[in-house]
Structures are given as C-alpha cells and as structure tokens.
C-alpha cells in the first residue's frame, strides 16, 4: 500500500527508481488536500476561511485525507455510520445537496472496500438517499435518526464501529445548531451529537467532514475555529454562543465544500488501496445531484430547484473537481519510461 507497485500503463520500471521527489509517498494526498480546499463559492457566502481552518487542523502533520483514509484502513470490515442531512422547513424541506451526495459516494467506496456502511439521516432525507444510491451503484441500509432517543444512542454506540459525518450541523455549547449565516436550525434528531461524542469517547473511529465550522467535527479546533469563522463566537441569535460546534471528532477533514471532502477521502482511499474504481466519474456525480434534486433536495446556496450544483457551484464545476481528483489518482499509478 502507499506508493504502490502496480503498473496500469507503459513498460515496467524495474530498472528505474519508482519514486521521485524524495520518495514522498504522501504526495497524492497533499495534492488531493489542495484541490478540495480550493474555494469556488459565491462571494457573499462565507469565503476565504477554508485555508485557515485547514491549516489549523493540519498543523505540521500528514495531509488530512491521508489521516482519515489510513484510520479507516486500520479498521477493516467496520460497521460505519454515515451521518448527514439537515432538513430546514420552508427553505430546504428535504435537506441540501451538500452532505448527502458525498455520503453516498463514501457508501459506495466503503462497501467496495469491505466495510458495512449505513446511512443515518432524518426521515425527510430517506427518499433522497434512496434515489441517489443506485446512481452510484450502492445499496447501504438507510437508518432514520428522526425522534432519536437516548436509549437508541446508547445502543448505537455499541452497534457501530465508527462514524463519518458529512456536513452534519453540530450543536454549540448551548445546544443550538446554526446555519453558516448564524440562523438557528431546529434539530429533528437532537441527540445525534451524543452518538458521535459517545463513539469518540469509546475510542471508536470518528471522522467529521465540514466546510464552515458549524458542522460536527469542528469541536476539535473549537476555540481557534471561533476566531477564524465569521459569526464563530457571536451567531446573532438569542443563544449568543456562536455558530462553531463543540462536537469534536477524532479526525476532522476540512474542505471548500463538504462533499468535496467526501470525494477527497474516497480519492485518498483509492490511492491507499490502489483501487481506481472507488470514485465515480464527474458525470455520474452530477447525475447523482440531479437525482437528489428530482426528489426535492436543493442546493444550499441557491435554493433553486432548477439549479444543479452544490453550494452555488454549478454541476460543470463539480464534475471538474471530480475529474481532477481522478486525474491525481490515476497519474499516481501511471508508469512511463521517459528518457529525456
């Protein structure tokens, strides 16, 4: 694993050094991290904070997609809860595109790697997940979090070996969840933060994927995130505790768009396992978005059922990100003997 030794093209390189660049086998993850933290949002949405959040989480350690991928690989055959979905009555009755699409992409990859992913969403999102899964050729069980009880939480902490949250709003210290603009979002699955906290406390693998500081996982850098994120410490709502969540995960993956984080994690798993079939192509991801929109899921920035995209970024640009991720992965395994 890691550097990989398999050739998919060209003559074998047995007489040449396989690696250049000082044998740094973390290079593809570095490139994946850079790509998925490239912001393309509309400029009146929060812009410019992702690199700072990324840097804060990264510190001097390994690329974030590598850390998360390696952690998953260290727990083969795990039953993993993929947690996403924030329905917002009146605006996003069946949730937003950011979160669910990355979640089904992860479900596909994890299934193919021998894990047992289950998708945990509020009832409103169940049919959205249902129509997306066949598009990426996966059929993970869908589990409802609506009306989640404390008893269930205790059971699920035992049932699951780990969890990945994708753009799942987390509560702040006052127990309030907020949109990136500081609007309080009433939860339909209140104790779901307890599930993630419980798994983390049990020493199980938890990975949070987010793009704004208000999503589960950012509790890992709670105080610094409150400084970096606009409205981080002052949401403007009566709770007055800011939008940054106190819910931490073992690993935190920061991306420009949360779904990009999920695609990046799948790409990292592709490199680590030398599997190029894990991430669907860009057109398939766009078809997945189309399927979710047909079921009532909406872009969170545009809130427009005629817009096929993610966080205000049109489908063509989403497909472009996936194309570049796939290029990074494929190039890493492409061997060619060049003599000049």
């Amino acid at each position, binding site marked *: 694993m890691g550097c990989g030794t398999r050739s998919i093209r*060209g003559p074998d*390189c047995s007489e*040449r*050094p*396989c*690696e*250049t*660049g*000082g044998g*740094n086998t973390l*290079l593809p993850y*570095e*490139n994946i991290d*850079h*790509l998925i*933290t*490239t*912001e*393309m*949002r*509309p*400029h*009146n*949405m929060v*812009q*410019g904070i992702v*690199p700072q959040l990324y840097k804060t989480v990264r510190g001097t350690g390994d690329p974030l997609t590598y850390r998360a991928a390696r952690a998953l690989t260290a727990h083969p055959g795990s039953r993993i809860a993929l947690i996403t979905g924030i329905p917002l009555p009146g*605006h996003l009755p069946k949730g937003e595109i950011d979160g669910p699409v990355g979640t089904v992409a992860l479900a596909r990859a994890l299934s193919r790697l021998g894990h047992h992913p289950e998708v945990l969403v509020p009832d409103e999102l169940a049919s959205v997940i249902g129509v997306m899964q066949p598009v990426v050729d996966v059929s993970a069980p869908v589990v409802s979090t609506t009306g989640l009880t404390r008893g269930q939480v205790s059971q699920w902490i035992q049932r699951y070996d780990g969890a990945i949250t994708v753009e799942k709003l987390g509560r702040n210290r006052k127990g309030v969840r907020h*949109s990136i*603009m500081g*609007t309080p*979002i009433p939860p339909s699955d209140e104790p779901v933060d307890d599930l993630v906290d419980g798994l983390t406390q049990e020493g199980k693998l938890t990975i949070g994927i987010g793009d704004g500081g208000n999503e589960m996982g950012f509790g890992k850098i709670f105080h610094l995130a409150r400084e970096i994120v606009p409205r981080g410490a002052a949401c403007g709502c009566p709770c007055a505790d800011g939008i940054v969540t106190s819910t931490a995960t073992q690993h935190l993956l920061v991306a*420009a768009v949360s779904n990009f984080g999920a695609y990046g994690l799948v790409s990292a798993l592709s490199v680590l396992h030398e599997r190029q079939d894990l991430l669907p192509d*860009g057109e398939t991801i766009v078809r997945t978005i189309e399927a979710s929109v047909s079921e009532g899921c909406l872009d*969170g*920035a*545009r*809130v427009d059922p005629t817009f096929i995209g993610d966080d*205000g*970024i*049109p489908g*063509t*640009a989403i*497909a*472009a*990100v996936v*194309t*570049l991720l796939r*290029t*990074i992965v494929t*190039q*890493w*395994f*492409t*061997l*060619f*003997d*060049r*003599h*000049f």
Partner: protein
Amino acid sequence: MPLIVAEHIDRLVCTVEMRFRSGLPRGVTVPLYEAARRAQGGQPLAYLAATALRERVRAESHVLVVTGAGAPPGLPRSETDGPPGAAAIARAVDWGLGAKPVIVTEARHAAPIVAAVEALGVAVVEPEVFRGRGHTAVLETLPTGLEADRIRAAEIFERYQPAAAVFIEKGGPNEAGMYHSIMGIGRGPDVMANAFHIVDLSRQRQCLTIGIGDGGNEIGFGMIRDTVQEVQPYGLRCQCPCEKGIATVTTTDVLVAASISNWGAYGISACLSLLLNRPDMLQTEEMERVMLERCVAAGGEDGAYGAPLLMVDGTWPRTQEAVITMLRNIVVNGLTDYTRGF
C-alpha cells in the same frame, strides 16, 4: 475580495501537481511555489502578475509573449505546455487589455504556437494587418545563436517598444550558459533561442517581465535559484558536461511557479478577468479543447510522453478543461452575489 479569490486561483493552478510516475520529478511544485511567494512578498502569484500587467500595459501597448520549449530530436516543434499558455496571455492582452501581443519563438516552434493563439481568437497576421486592427498578433522569430539572438532582441525592442514581456515555459540558461531539460539533458545556445536577451533589454528599458514555469529551468526562476538547486533532482548537477545543474540564472520582475506552465498563464488570465470584471475573457472549455487539438495537429507534442498526443505534461484534455471550468467558476462566483433567507 479579489485577493481572497486570487488565493484560490493560485491554489488550483500552482499547488495541485499531477505528474505521472516515471523519472520525471514529483513533489517539486509546492516547494517552488512557496519559495516564489516568499521571494515576492507573499501575495498570490497569478494576482501579482495580473496586477502588474494591468498597471503597466496601456491600450495599444505591445506585449512580447515568448514561448516554445524543446529541441530535436525529442520535441522538434514545441511541446504542448507553453503554446496554450502563450495563447491565453495573448488573448488577455488583446481581448482584456486592448493591447497588442507579439509572439516570439524559434522558427521551428512557430506552427503549434500560431495554431494555439488563433484558436483563442487572436489571428497571427502580417505587420500591416497587425497595425490596422485588433484581435491580431504578429510573429517574431529568434534565430538561435548568442550573437544573432542579441541582435534580433534589440531589433524587436526597436520595432515594438514593448511595455511588458511574458515568458511561458521558456528555457533560461544556467550559470554556464547552457539550457537543460528537466531531466538535466543539456543543449547549447546555438540550439535554443537565447530569450534572456529580451530580459536584459527589458531591464534597461523599464519593460515589465513575467516568467511562468513549472520546473526551475525556465526564464524567471533565477529569482529562486537556491530552491531550484535544492528540490530538483538535477538542480545542482545536470547530466551534461557543464555539470552546473538545470537551475536558470535568468530572473524576471514577477515569477509564477505553477503545476503546469499553461495553467500558470490561465491563472493570470483568470485574475485579469476578475480585476477587469470580464468573466468571459478566459477561454471556454470548448476553446481549450479546440486549441489543444490544433496545437497538436500543427506539430506540438506532449512533453511528458514525447509523442503527438492530446495531452499536456501527461494529463488529458478533460483535465485541462476541468481546470478551465474551475477557474471560470471561481471568477464568476467571485463576481456574483446570491441572497438566501437563512
């Protein structure tokens, strides 16, 4: 606000490396980029180049666009990295700044460069036509040979009085006056155009110089020669008898160290689009595809495979189009407001 957007333009075109596994160096892009940023005060590199062009180039000014990499037998008619970047700069100069691009290269590299420039809506024409209308460029060739190129560079300056010169993937000499491939294969000044003369003249004539490259052997990288020597496998010592390494000594006012040189040029064009509020200026995906096809049809070859493939540095056409799509979206969304109710 432009700086926040420009940060992400750099992130895309300067920090995502996509080289395949072979003898070609990998893991050099980010160290070169970071060194170039430090050496220039810390602002995004494509933004630095775009703002400099905007400040220094007036309508009807001439801008030298210098490119063309490779030599027989490996790459006799340029590689595909360079000409498309030159075309993007020529397009930005003409369609964006209303100025007049002058393409400069070796005669052997002219055909694929002309094909690329014309695919982006700038016709390469006779001097009379060039003087008479816009959306045109002229071609000037460097004959190769130290003295001949010095004379020609002086003639070019005399003729055009350029306000700026932009070098895209254009080889620069090392301290021994030798040119090198990234793998350290050496070539002399009689084989390669000595475009550094243009840099020398620019310095005397207050002409802005911008170098765009991806390896450290290209004009501009003299600015961070120490880093090139440190990170490039053949940086300090090449495979040719000169033994002085591939790092060039030629320095430009602005250096853009990119993942692929073309992308550095696209990044500059994207930043100019942003600054000029002209999101249509950067080429479309369709233009990008047509440009690559015409460039290869005219003899351009992929520099990584050394073959007439529809590729740039070993990456596919769809990869180039994806970069364009992302850049265009970064610019459009950077100029757009949406309001939502929560």
